[in-house]
């Protein structure tokens, strides 16, 4: 198709599709009138059943925990896929066909950036850790915590050279952590089967006080594994991308 034809066809189709979609959307109960019954049913039982005051985490890691297993493995697969696609395979020569960054040197990082980045690293680790370990109480959880933790490593990268970064996150170790995170989640669920309980059954003691850090049984444990998996997966993706960038830069010298 020529761009003109395509544009015409797209506008005809999109006008129809958006109109059709809107037609359906207007059949929803108005905004702010969520009818239930799923949400109210969960809200009624969640705190009592799980001792977790963060109901979203309870849904994510318990009621719909199996979704989250799939979700973690989507991330796991994406990290592995990124590695597969970007990793140098045999036959891919030292020279890539398009070495467009040949005459461009990486700008040196200024000392100010280094210092600031290093100063931030500590607090960022603390925040990430706090988020990953408070899924059951506050709006937080392994996912957000994991991303924040991974950011800490990127700050280290900003502060120093790639060398430091790759020393801190050798791919094999990152892989292992990622696998431990994703696999650990699946295994926590599996452990229930050995006692005849259904997959992902919350078999740990729930604690007495709703909202305490030690409450909620497997929810907190799963959140921890998710934090591991997310941090490692994100780190893996970033380091694969960095490796590509850096290899080109070094090749240009």
């Amino acid at each position, binding site marked *: 198709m020529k761009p003109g034809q395509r544009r015409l066809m797209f506008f005809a*189709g999109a006008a129809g599709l958006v109109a059709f979609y809107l037609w359906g959307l207007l059949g*929803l109960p108005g905004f702010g009138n969520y009818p239930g019954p799923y949400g109210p049913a969960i809200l009624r039982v969640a705190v009592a059943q799980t001792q977790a005051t963060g109901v979203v985490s309870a849904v994510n890691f318990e009621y719909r925990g199996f979704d989250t297993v799939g979700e973690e493995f989507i991330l796991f697969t994406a990290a592995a896929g*990124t590695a597969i696609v970007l990793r140098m395979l045999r036959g891919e020569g030292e020279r890539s066909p398009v070495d467009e960054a040949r005459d461009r040197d990486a700008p040196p990082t200024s000392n100010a950036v280094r210092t600031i980045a290093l100063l931030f690293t500590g607090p960022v680790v603390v925040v990430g850790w706090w988020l990953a370990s408070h899924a059951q109480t506050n709006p937080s959880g392994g996912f957000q915590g994991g991303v924040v933790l991974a950011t800490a490593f990127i700050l280290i990268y900003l502060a120093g050279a790639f060398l430091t970064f790759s020393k801190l996150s050798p791919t094999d170790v990152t892989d292992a952590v990622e696998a431990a995170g994703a696999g650990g989640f699946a295994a926590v669920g599996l452990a229930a089967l050995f006692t005849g309980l259904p997959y992902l059954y919350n078999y740990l003691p729930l604690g007495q006080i709703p909202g305490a850090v030690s409450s909620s049984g497997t929810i907190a444990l799963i959140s921890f594994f998710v934090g591991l998996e997310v941090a490692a997966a994100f780190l893996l993706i970033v380091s694969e991308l960095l490796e590509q960038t850096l290899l080109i830069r070094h090749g240009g010298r």
Partner: protein
Amino acid sequence: MDHLFALSVAVPLLVAAALVGVKPLLSGRRRMLDTVAVLTAASVAVMLLVIMVQTDGGDRVYWFAGFRPFRGVVIGIDFEAGPLSAGLAALAAVLVTASMVFSWRYFERVATYYHALMLTFLAGMTGFCLTGDIFDLFVWFELMGVSAYALTAYRPEERGPIQGALTFAITNSVGAYVSLSGIALIYGRTGALNMAQIGAYIGRHPPDRLVVVAFLLILAGLLVKSAIVPFHFWLADAHAVAPTPLCVLFSGAMVELGLYGIARVYWSMFGTALGHRAEISHVFLTLGVLTAVVGALFCFRERHIKRLLAFSTISHAGMFLSGIGLLTPLGLAGAAVYVAGHAMVKGALFLCTGIVLHRLGSVNETWLHGRARHLRITGVVFTLAGLGLADLPPFGTFLGKGWIEDTGSAHGMPWLMPVFVLCTILAGGAVLRVAGGVFYGLGDPPSEDERMARAANEETSETDADKRRTPLTMIIPPTVLVALAVAIGLTPLGPAADAAAVRFADQAAYNATVLRGAHVAHPVAPFAAEAAGITVSDVVTGLVSAAGALLLAYLALYWRRLPVLRRGYEPGTGLTTLAEGFQSGVVNDYVTWMVFGLACLGGVLALIIR
């Protein structure tokens, strides 16, 4: 044990994680890696087959974390398995096993990631088949998708894969997000994600615009995945470039899973609510027949063997959709058996193509003409599978197609049979033309099409093993698959398949099973079970298709030597320019077609149900 439900997904996932986790220990221990992965896939296949047999007497439900529904309100996630869903998942697991055995010697330098991704792909397919929750369906759909995109882009040292992986990933992602919008829409109305609960809720009210819109939007992703015209463009690009063992899974299982999703969504959720059975059936049939014809025509003009097989898959997907779209149990049973038979023969064809690629380094039909004579066993297997694709009895394919045609005739659509026979002849003829030309050197090589030749020659060998012989691990899987295709045709599947289909199509029974834990062995179906057996007409149409395909292959190979045809034009040239226009390879075009197709379908559905 019902825990098999959870294990069939959790085990491949855990093994995938473990393989990546201990990656450094496995470097240089390729055989161990292969063994673990093959055993895992095979054990999943066994588990699913057990589930399939166990559910023969009635569907079973598994509640994750033990959250059972309370007064019809579901707060957890369930797996619901019947013979059809478990059977399809088992089929996928068998194909994964076969293609992993095949890659034993095929890829010499694959790393751990290849095995891990194959296992997550398998887990995604299993979860997709078994789940009873619409959002969970989306999650496994995405896991399947992400694994498949990565595996398609697996050989980045070559030119092709990247482009095919990109069109594949972008079109399928757009489809998935449109589906998710549909899920959110239906959730906003019903406040439920469990398919049975949604079906029960919307079934109590007359259909309105929201239900219609949600139905089409949810179908969008599934239509893209199952390569229905005009959402099919990505499939040929992706197949042409994906590693051959993966093509087996794409053609044999992934496309069919999309169709299964359509059937599941229709019968578990929207069937009762939408009503208008005849009109909706017509919409499905129109799409199905259009897809079957377009796929068959494109298949015949193709010279790149993997693309040729991919277009044949599109044609078959159209026939499967027609079977489902008849909206009767026998049509569904026919589609199910047809899917199983097709998966076996198509898998065998792809694997044989892989052997040719391994030994001769090309998939260009013209170049290969007569050059594969020494691959005797491969030639025999390929030819047999080609005959199976042309629906020769007793391959399982003739049975399934026969039932679909019988149902069509019984419901006032006798034209379905000739159309199907024609499509089968075109696709089967193309494959048999390849078989005769490449493996036996019959007739003249087809004329060179410049673009096709360029594309096909770029497909250099994927392997680096010793090319002088075909390893046993490469020839056994296709042979076994062809044998299984015959076994499907010879087993008296009729009553069991029909009973399973009747249960699948009975929304009331599904609701009772999931929401009230009822054990429904013999539901009061809205349909009477139709007699499913091997009729004379099934055998005759099968024979006619196969004979027609052979004749067409003969004509295609010898047409230059036949006085009558000599002055005729090259078969299929008229299509070439048209095809170039449609199959442009530009992802923007494909997405535009999707939007346009959805708008048209939306218009039609809106007119039907107002």
